[in-house]
């Protein structure tokens, strides 16, 4: 039996990660490999799932990018602001540009294979409780919730400031002004009921919203050639289903507006300004210069 650990509710409408996992498991089961989905959290949190995969005790897990980043930072190329134009470009770098292979060169010795990168929704934008953000200058005075040091550096480069708040405390932090906003894919405030106090959204298109599917390398190498081919084809089927799902996600913006969130579309000049101001992320500890160059080459433009 192939165990697949989910990282989101089993929702084919709202969760791109589940769309991937479900297409993957369906393909396997239809082709004679028994696969079973385990609810989010059932087999443990992100770290535990990673640990189980690396030891061959869990076959497949839907996981965040950063889980592999703790072994090798190359994968953080996908977190560079204004690096990719589109999901097609991400796919080109990963598959034609060989980046997925390079990522795996570092992780497979640790027992973990990155099977695929899945989209969980439209690009990351700027949410806040205070004011419409139409240019970098509007970021002044906003205190944004940050994930890590490199994100704080990014906020500071935009003229804002950052503070680290755990996700569970975010509603209170936004209500009370400990934080004024966050970066997230557009569906997040809807999913978590934050639209009562999140008032402004800017479609800044900073990075694509991505997670990964990881598999146990021991399991993968232990498959017969025939079964491995089925697994590879299941990955292709799941990728296709995920990219197809993403195309239908444009309605989120309308739903945000319905929920009372004012949406700002950045002008081309403003977007260029944000891109300019985001250069700091290319000089942070998140990822090395050489690694960025590899991603550049892989994008092929």
């Amino acid at each position, binding site marked *: 039996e192939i165990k697949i650990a989910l990282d989101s509710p089993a929702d084919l409408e709202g969760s791109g990660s589940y769309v991937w996992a479900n297409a993957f498991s369906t393909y396997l089961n239809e082709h004679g490999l028994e696969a079973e989905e*385990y*609810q989010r959290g*059932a*087999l*443990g*949190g992100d*770290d*535990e799932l990673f*640990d*189980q995969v690396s*030891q061959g*005790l869990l076959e497949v897990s839907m996981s965040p990018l950063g889980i592999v980043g703790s072994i090798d930072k190359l994968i953080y190329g996908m977190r560079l602001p204004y690096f990719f134009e589109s999901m097609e470009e991400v796919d080109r770098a990963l598959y034609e540009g060989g980046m997925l292979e390079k990522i795996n060169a570092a992780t497979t010795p640790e027992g973990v294979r990155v099977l695929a990168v899945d989209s969980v929704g439209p690009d990351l934008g700027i949410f806040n409780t205070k004011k419409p953000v139409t240019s970098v200058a509007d970021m002044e005075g906003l205190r944004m919730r940050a994930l890590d040091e490199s994100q704080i550096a990014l906020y500071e480069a935009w003229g804002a400031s950052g503070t680290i*708040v*755990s996700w*569970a*405390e975010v*509603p*209170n*932090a*936004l*209500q*009370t*002004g*400990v934080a004024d906003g966050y970066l997230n894919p557009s569906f997040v405030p809807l999913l*978590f*009921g*934050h639209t*009562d*106090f999140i008032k402004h959204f800017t479609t800044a298109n900073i990075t694509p919203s991505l997670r990964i599917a990881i598999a146990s390398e021991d399991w993968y190498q232990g498959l017969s050639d025939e079964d491995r081919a089925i697994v590879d084809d299941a990955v292709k089927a799941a990728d296709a289903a995920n990219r197809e799902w993403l195309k239908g996600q444009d309605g989120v913006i309308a739903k945000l507006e319905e929920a009372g969130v004012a949406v700002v579309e950045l002008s081309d000049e403003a977007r260029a300004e944000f891109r300019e101001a985001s250069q700091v992320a290319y000089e942070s500890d998140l990822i090395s210069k050489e690694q960025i160059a590899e991603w550049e080459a892989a994008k092929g433009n």
Partner: protein
Amino acid sequence: MIALVPIAALVLLLSGLAIAYVIGGSAVLAYVAMDHTRYLAILPQQIFSKIDVFALMAMPLFILAGELMNRGGITAALINLSMAMVGRLRGGLGHVNVLTSVFFAGISGSAVADAAALSNTLVPEMQRRGYTLTYASTITAASSIIGPIVPPSIILIFYGALMGTSVTALFLAGILPGLLLAAALIALNAIYAARQQHPRVEREDMPPLLPTIARSLPALSLPIIILGGIVLGWMTPTEAAAVAVFVAMGAGWFYSGLTLRGIAESLQRTAMLSGSIFIIICAVSALGHLGALERLPESISAAVTSLGLGPVGYMLVLNVIFIVAGMVLDIPVALALLVPLLAPVALANGADPVHLGIVLCFNLCIGLVSPPMGGCLLVVSAVTGVSYWTLARAILPFVLVEIVVLGILIAFPQISLFLPQYFGFAGG
């Protein structure tokens, strides 16, 4: 093979081994018996992940603040303040007992700490003024459980960590139920006072009003800082707990009850108490993975569906399970074992995670004052010398009232959810 595991567990339990090690040892046996031995390889990571949790951080710090508080002479200041407020009523010291527990609750997250502190101080005082020792002990035990319901609360922190629910939301949700419980106990005390002719505090025995209030300010500043700080978003629960530690030190210095030795002992007790809770988490995390591999949560939810319990029926069953668990198990054990297994089904059936947290906390607290294993009964009985079973009998009317309050909380989730929703936590 698998039948041997419960037998082995029973033998370990009867040998006097601590519950955490009984659970851990039996879990390991169960992995072997169920042919899951290879999964033991992830045990260390599993343990680490379950204790390396953001939401747990407030727990040791609030334990420490409570320890410092108990050693710092703050209890006496709180009793005097309550006395100045309600002492002149009939049954005054009974009301004082309940009210002191409310103030105490705003500082400490533990019912047992409250029970121990007031058994030492207020019970002899009540006895001296014409209350029976049994009644004084009874109301002390009964009102001690206000402690973990009014924030801060170790139980709610633990629940928040297990369920990934905001500790701030849980703290906000505990305020009104805690006050409702206090009001119910004061009402019951008034009935007893009228029927048994309990005394009031004589005018000449009343502490002077203004100096008393002035003297209680450092102690009272604590709940205000803790609650205000969290509610207004100045601090996370963890930060508030750290601030509480510093304020407790300051207040202890003000009341000049806190010695260096007292601080050292507080730190040691904090480390060991936290350790006792952590080893339980370690043990249960081993068991938890076994349940996941065997798809136990899915089986439970299937059973709920097939029995046709429905959301209300399941909630009632859940309450019975938790009250019984609170009676026979230590609270952290009951929480760690049952919450991950039973709570998700309730949530899937439409329960609010914050409301559920308050209800389950209340359940476990009732277990603290019910036989056979009620922790607060044990402490009060040990300190006051009233026999355990006498106390268990005398407390029955109070427990009944507490069950009624619990029923009201279950029927009206708004009592718990009003404040969290007011401060922007969605749900309900």
